[in-house]
């Protein structure tokens, strides 16, 4: 029983671990959530192992399962919040949703540093792998506006 569970948990551990760095690189939140699903997979296998080892203690398996299910549910809630947030055009976050993405701020400071711009507002929405940005600018002078705005 135990070797069978170990055997079934190993691919989930390896594949789950491999997916996370790739997901970050591709900015792919689906892949990231999938990696977490693999984590849920091997955690449950661990719980089953604890259950088998603790045959004398009938409640050990259920107790381990409760703790692990709470962890999985927490991952689910976190991702669900982030997914609905993305569909509501909330501010872009990094792939694991732990913090805001630095790109909008970088874009704003780049635009603001342009000579012909006196003020600007930037909002960025996340559409899957790509970001779409609205940039509104206040030019420093109205003179020769058509010419100036063509300059990169």
């Amino acid at each position, binding site marked *: 029983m135990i070797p069978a569970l170990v055997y079934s948990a190993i691919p989930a551990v390896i594949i789950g671990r491999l997916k996370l760095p790739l997901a970050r690189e591709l900015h792919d939140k689906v892949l990231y959530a999938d990696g977490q699903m693999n984590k849920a997979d091997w955690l449950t296998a661990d719980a089953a192992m604890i259950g088998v080892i603790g045959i004398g203690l009938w409640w050990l398996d259920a107790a381990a399962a409760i703790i692990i299910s709470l962890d999985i549910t927490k991952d689910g809630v976190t991702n669900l919040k982030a997914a609905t947030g*993305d569909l509501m055009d909330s501010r872009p976050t990094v792939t694991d949703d732990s913090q805001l993405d630095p790109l909008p701020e970088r874009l704003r400071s780049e635009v603001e540093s342009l000579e012909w711009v006196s003020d600007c507002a930037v909002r960025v929405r996340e559409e899957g792998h790509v970001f779409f940005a609205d940039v509104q600018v206040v030019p420093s002078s109205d003179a020769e506006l058509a010419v100036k705005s063509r300059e990169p």
Partner: protein
Amino acid sequence: MHEGVKDNPPWVELDELDLEARRYALAERFAAGIEAEIEWIEGSEEELFAALEVHELDLVVGGITSVSPWASVAALTHPYLTTASLVAVPEGREPPDDIAGLEVGVESSSELEGLLRKTDARVIEVEDVAAHEGAVAIDNYLLDDLDVVDTGALPFGYHRAVNVGYLCASLALFVMGLFILDDSVMKFISFEHAHAPIGLVQPWGRATLAGVGS
């Protein structure tokens, strides 16, 4: 560093002004980032990629599509522009629900003409779609230049499909967590210790649905 340039308007234009265009600026910034100097080489796609394959060139810049057959010998960048072929009607005219039977102008002997012939539209070959009065089949990046409106259903493309997938995946994770929580709490309070090990393993067996078989 040797770089190849492919002339493929409107993606990359090789006249004097556009040599300073963004794509070149991008290659130059990349080169500066790795402290390389650029030696520009012009040529056709075939020539450039053949040279790239044998490491005579280091980088090829041009309007290369993501389905390029060269993708197997070269690493392409992320697509920076997604286009779609569509049928558009002149501004002010009501877009039809269906192109079946609609007279659609299309550049003669183009790929688009072949694609259009596979639909139920009536194909009208024209030399210049911009000069054609009625509906035309074009690539969507040309819309503004021609003063026509898009009749496509997904003007922003398919990017959001990833978000939809993400929502489904996180919902699945959440529901699986709840399912296991419910199951384990019920086991815990029901004192089923007589057949505990095997009985309690059962629900984990179902978790195989979630990903790799466990």
